[in-house]
């Protein structure tokens, strides 16, 4: 799966969790999920679980800890799919 496709799907997954929907319109790989999209930190686990379901991958706690930006999520998923 290409990086663009993964990014598209990641943004789609983030939509219901983002308290700042306007930020989703200008989302980039550098966008911070917590501060940029205003996703509640307690919901970040739900987001990663949604990635697991959508991409059929399994994410360890340590890997999930490293997800700060949209790009981190995309790279994590890419790595798992490879």
């Amino acid at each position, binding site marked *: 799966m290409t990086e663009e496709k993964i990014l598209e799907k990641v943004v789609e997954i983030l939509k219901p969790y983002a308290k700042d929907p306007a930020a989703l319109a200008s989302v980039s790989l550098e966008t911070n999920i*917590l501060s940029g999209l205003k996703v*509640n*930190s*307690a919901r*970040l*686990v739900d987001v*990663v*679980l949604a990635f*697991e379901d959508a991409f059929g991958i*399994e*994410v*360890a*706690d*340590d890997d*999930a*800890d*490293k*997800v*700060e930006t949209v790009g981190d999520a995309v790279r994590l998923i890419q790595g798992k799919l490879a």
Partner: protein
Amino acid sequence: MASDTAGLKATAVSRSESAPDPAARGWSRRALEAQRLAGRLAAPLWLPPVVLLMRFVLRWRIRDAGRCRREYAKLLEEHRPLLVVANHLTMVDSAVIGWGLGSATSHVVRHRGLPWNVPLQRRVESSWLWRTLAYVMKCVPVPRGGDRQEVAHVLERLAHLLRSGETVLMFPESGRSRSGRVDPQVVADGVGRLIKEVEGCRVLCVYLRGDAQRTWSNLPARGDTFTIATRLVEPRTGLRGLRASRDLATQVVHHLVELERDCLEGRAAS
């Protein structure tokens, strides 16, 4: 029984040794040991006044505290990791729970029985006084809404404390319950992650509620009497990764929901 305990100790050591180097992750075991020692030395100075304040100035009472303390003392004798998990309605829940689990004297004498707390870093770092008090009152501050890696380092410290025979108190709902009831939809995964990480971890679910407590507040009402209901569990899961943490935390919160239901039904019946 003796061989079981030996087995647990051996497992705990090997897990601890295989854990990442704490110094490389921003904390050190020595710093925690120093804090533990400072807390132990300072306990005779702050514990009795705090209990006297609760007992005689705020006139709080704990229903059946003797039973609660005897049961807790028995659990401490087993020398297996013990995580205390409670509902959260006021800002002094940890103090009341600590008092309910042991008298000031017992906590001074057997200081490991006084659970470590996980207050918000923002609150602790608001002044030097709070920092000092948090240090000697066995607190490991946690950032809220911040870097997950920082939170992971806090969990590593707590796991180390549990493995080394200390007890830790956590609130799986993260903050105080705004509805006044345990909300199974709001589950912080830290509790589950800790249970998963610490081999043989027992969980003492504690439901605390004052008779006059309707919903959440800063302080319980003056003259309030508390009920403390407890249940010892050892959650298990067949899941892995994040799902395992979520599953374990959810199991614990469901025990709290059941304790709450029993407590409120018992109150209604009387």
